[in-house]
């Protein structure tokens, strides 16, 4: 039987994929084709740029930007055993229609291990998960000693996918060795990095894999209870995880004496309440306990004294989703993927000025060039590549010189960036690096919990200095201040947030110091972003008085009668640049 897999990830849903799905359902039933085609509403396929997307088995034909009105034609073709060419992905460089998914450049270089079920199975149906080897790893694990499980994870070389990249097996081992009446497994689904959504997609697309990872971790360290701490901004993920928990309970994968063993495990969901810092493990535990999400000093580490003062192990969604994969394929085979010190795959959220935005799972060690240009399809609008920002507000940027750098934990650190949770934002020449740093700092300032002095006070000062610079009021000493204060904040802050918040500044200062200096000395923003350093002008000789700019101006700063050259009132202008984009005659210039 052929399967029609409609993407039900958040991206495609916002593109009305639900309506597409419903239209397909009606059409199949109208034509009595239910026996021939199985319709599934799946998790995210990753290629959000092209949404809503549909995958049709067995040939994995990949249809993009599907609208409900396309449905009758699509079904007509499928019924005939044909491919509906109109909706196939078009390779932008060659204009060729690509037949199958794995030939789509976006997927070609990916190695979808953790995402293997995403977009394939119906996340709200446990049977779908079971039929793709779901919970097999758990069954395998229950026959092993916990120490053996930990050894497997150690052998696999799995490192935490959420931030620092701490070896997962070692972490489990610490928790295993702590003696207590109760221990906890916590799944960190408080993915807060702007620009990262892999945990969301995993939770939405393959929730049982997350549960299975938690179960295995729980068995390994000797915990009986698990918590999933998830952002309240992810309602669909909450819903799918809740359904998965209920189904797993009903089938005996959660509860007492699991699968006839002596192992008991239950999982609760805790929804966050809007605080990025709760992604930090000790803050997250404070939050579960009903407190302000302020990090605790470590030691004591969670493995010794965590949630409710009990030993706790905390991993993020992607890390846990790797666990069943490792147990299924064997740790040694897994360890063959990736580089010497970074094993397995990593999911990146590819966004920004890149042609193919979406989620891509790649083996560790792949080069930046492959990710940006092969998978990402290069910089959008034919502009010039400038840099990528990797690791979100705690990360840094990589430039052209790093394009052939193999991406793994250590090489990124060396280059002044970090893996973080895997947000990868591509920037072109029209991105101002100072303004980018300012953006990240304003995020960190807003999300600082306020507990420790360097982060609470220091990030505000960094932001103020950057603000001065982008407004044209900076002085050269400010650059030194950014550097030294930034370093001191990194050195002396209490938690990971403060210890990494200045990274975007330090890294842009390192690679784009000249851009900073231009802002300070010449009062110029080369990317044309910093509004205070810009003004827009209509060149009268080029203006055809079409009125498009006037219509598009959000602040009504443009005046001009028909057939008269238009004018921009500087006092009203918000320097948004929309007029310049809209002008078909290039009559508006920035200076």
């Amino acid at each position, binding site marked *: 039987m052929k399967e029609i897999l409609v993407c039900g990830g958040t991206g495609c849903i916002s593109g009305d994929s639900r309506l597409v799905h419903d239209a397909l359902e009606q059409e199949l039933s109208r034509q009595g084709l239910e026996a021939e085609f199985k319709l599934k509403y799946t998790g995210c396929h990753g290629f959000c740029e092209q949404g809503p997307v549909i995958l049709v088995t067995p040939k994995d034909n990949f249809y993009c930007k599907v609208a409900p009105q396309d449905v009758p034609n699509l079904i007509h073709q499928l019924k005939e055993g044909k491919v509906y060419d109109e909706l196939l992905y078009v390779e932008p460089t060659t204009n060729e229609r690509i037949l199958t998914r794995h030939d789509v450049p976006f997927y070609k270089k990916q190695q979808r291990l953790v995402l293997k079920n995403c977009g394939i199975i119906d996340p709200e149906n446990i049977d779908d998960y079971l039929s793709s080897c779901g919970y097999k790893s758990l069954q395998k694990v229950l026959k092993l000693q916990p120490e053996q499980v930990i050894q497997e994870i150690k052998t696999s070389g799995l490192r935490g996918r959420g931030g620092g990249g701490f070896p997962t097996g070692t972490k489990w081992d610490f928790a295993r060795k702590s003696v207590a009446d109760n221990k906890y497994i916590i799944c960190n689904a408080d993915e807060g990095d702007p620009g990262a959504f892999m945990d969301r997609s995993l939770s939405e697309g393959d929730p049982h894999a997350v549960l299975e990872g938690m179960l295995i971790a729980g068995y390994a360290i000797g915990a009986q209870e698990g918590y999933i701490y998830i952002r309240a901004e992810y309602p669909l993920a909450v819903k799918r995880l809740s359904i998965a928990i209920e189904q797993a309970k009903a089938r005996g994968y959660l509860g007492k004496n699991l699968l006839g063993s002596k192992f008991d495990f239950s999982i609760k969901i805790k929804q966050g309440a809007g605080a990025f810092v709760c992604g930090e493990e000790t803050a997250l535990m404070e939050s579960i306990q009903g407190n302000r999400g302020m990090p605790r*000093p*470590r030691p004591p580490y969670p493995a010794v004294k965590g949630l409710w003062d009990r030993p706790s192990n905390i991993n993020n969604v992607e890390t846990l989703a790797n666990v069943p994969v490792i147990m299924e394929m064997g740790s040694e085979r897994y360890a063959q993927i990736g580089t010497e010190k970074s094993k397995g795959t990593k999911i990146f959220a590819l966004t920004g000025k890149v042609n193919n935005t979406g989620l891509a799972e790649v083996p560790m060690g792949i080069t930046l060039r492959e990710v940006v240009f092969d998978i990402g399809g290069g910089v959008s609008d034919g502009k010039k590549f400038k840099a990528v920002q990797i690791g979100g507000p705690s990360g840094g940027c990589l430039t052209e010189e790093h394009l052939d750098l193999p991406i793994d934990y250590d090489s990124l650190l060396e280059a002044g960036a970090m893996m973080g949770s895997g947000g990868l934002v591509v920037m072109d020449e029209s991105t101002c690096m100072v303004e980018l740093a300012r953006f990240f700092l304003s995020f960190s300032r807003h999300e600082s919990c*306020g507990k420790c002095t360097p982060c*609470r006070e220091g990030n505000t000062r960094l932001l103020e200095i950057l603000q001065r610079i982008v407004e044209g009021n900076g002085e050269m000493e400010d650059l030194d201040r950014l550097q030294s*204060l930034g370093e001191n904040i990194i*050195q002396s802050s209490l938690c990971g947030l403060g210890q990494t918040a200045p990274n975007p500044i330090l890294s842009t200062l390192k690679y784009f110091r000249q851009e900073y200096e231009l802002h300070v000395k010449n009062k110029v923003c080369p990317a044309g972003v910093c509004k205070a350093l810009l003004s827009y002008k209509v060149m009268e000789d080029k203006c055809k008085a079409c009125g498009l700019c006037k219509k598009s101006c959000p602040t009504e700063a443009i005046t001009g009668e028909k057939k008269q050259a238009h004018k921009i009132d500087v006092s009203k202008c918000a320097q948004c640049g929309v007029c310049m984009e809209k002008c078909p005659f290039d009559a508006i210039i920035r200076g």
Partner: protein
Amino acid sequence: MVSITINGNQYSVPADYSILKAAEENGINIPTLCYEEGLTITGSCRMCVVEVKGVRKLLASCATPVTEGMEVQTESERVISARRDILRLLIANHDLRCLTCERNGDCRLQDYCYRYKVEDTPYKGDKKHYPIDTDNHFFIRDYSKCIKCGKCVSICAEVNGAHVYDFMERGFDTKVTSAFDDTLQETTCTACGMCVNVCPVGALVEKSVLWEGRPWEVKKVTTTCSYCGVGCQLKLKVKDDRIIGVTADKSGSNLGHLCAKGQFGWEYVHSQDRLTDPLIKRNGVFEKASWEEALTYVAHRLQGILQERGGQAFAGLSSAKCTNEENYLFQKFMRTVLHTNNVDHCARL
């Protein structure tokens, strides 16, 4: 016991010590703003950061336990640089009207700025200003001077239990205050004043000391509280032979903790109603008398009754407010001078 090296010298300290405690016991001072013995260690001010060999970041010495072979630098260049920036950041958001601040000269922030030669801050920008709360009877709350060390929050929540204060908002907007900024009268505050005693700066100040004298002019005398039977140890703050306030003393079993009576109940000492001279009632009216006159009068009256009726006609009530020495002499007086065992006090009340 573990052996650790601090600033090049080896020390042997108990394994459950923090770096801070190990240093302190060996005469090495590490600056702290948020640390207070007996309260939860929050590690928030970061003043006490130190460099530990093999660790990339600086560590808060209050929160980091010692480990065997640990090598610690408490005043390295990195450490000093971090501390200087922390101080610069704190004073950038602090009401710097030190000239008339009651804590001038008795202020940790000031002391450390002096110690690390922080004369001014390069970080000029947003500065939080809050109106001073003078509404409660006992102390003022001037949050423009608050450095968010959180000790008032902890002592109120962890020792008193009233939990009147907490951190509100977050990030740069973080503020330590009561719910809805209510005046303390509107909260469950029991006016124990412990928050005032732990405040390292001038954010919480007893009203009674306002404009009464600079800290270095004030003498502190450790004594025992005059109220209930717990016998809290406290320090009386004395200026010009007058008590102007009370502060914590940690030598007693109260560990420096006090209640409203010990902290604010001392003013009766300076009451206008205090008796200043012996009084003898003549024709139903009290008249001032000299000690000689009064004692002679009393001795004469007692002697008369003793001779006439013997010891059984006397009774004496001593006081639970008087010292042991006085109580001893009182019963000795009753028994040996007035020949009676009719002596008691208010133990039953």
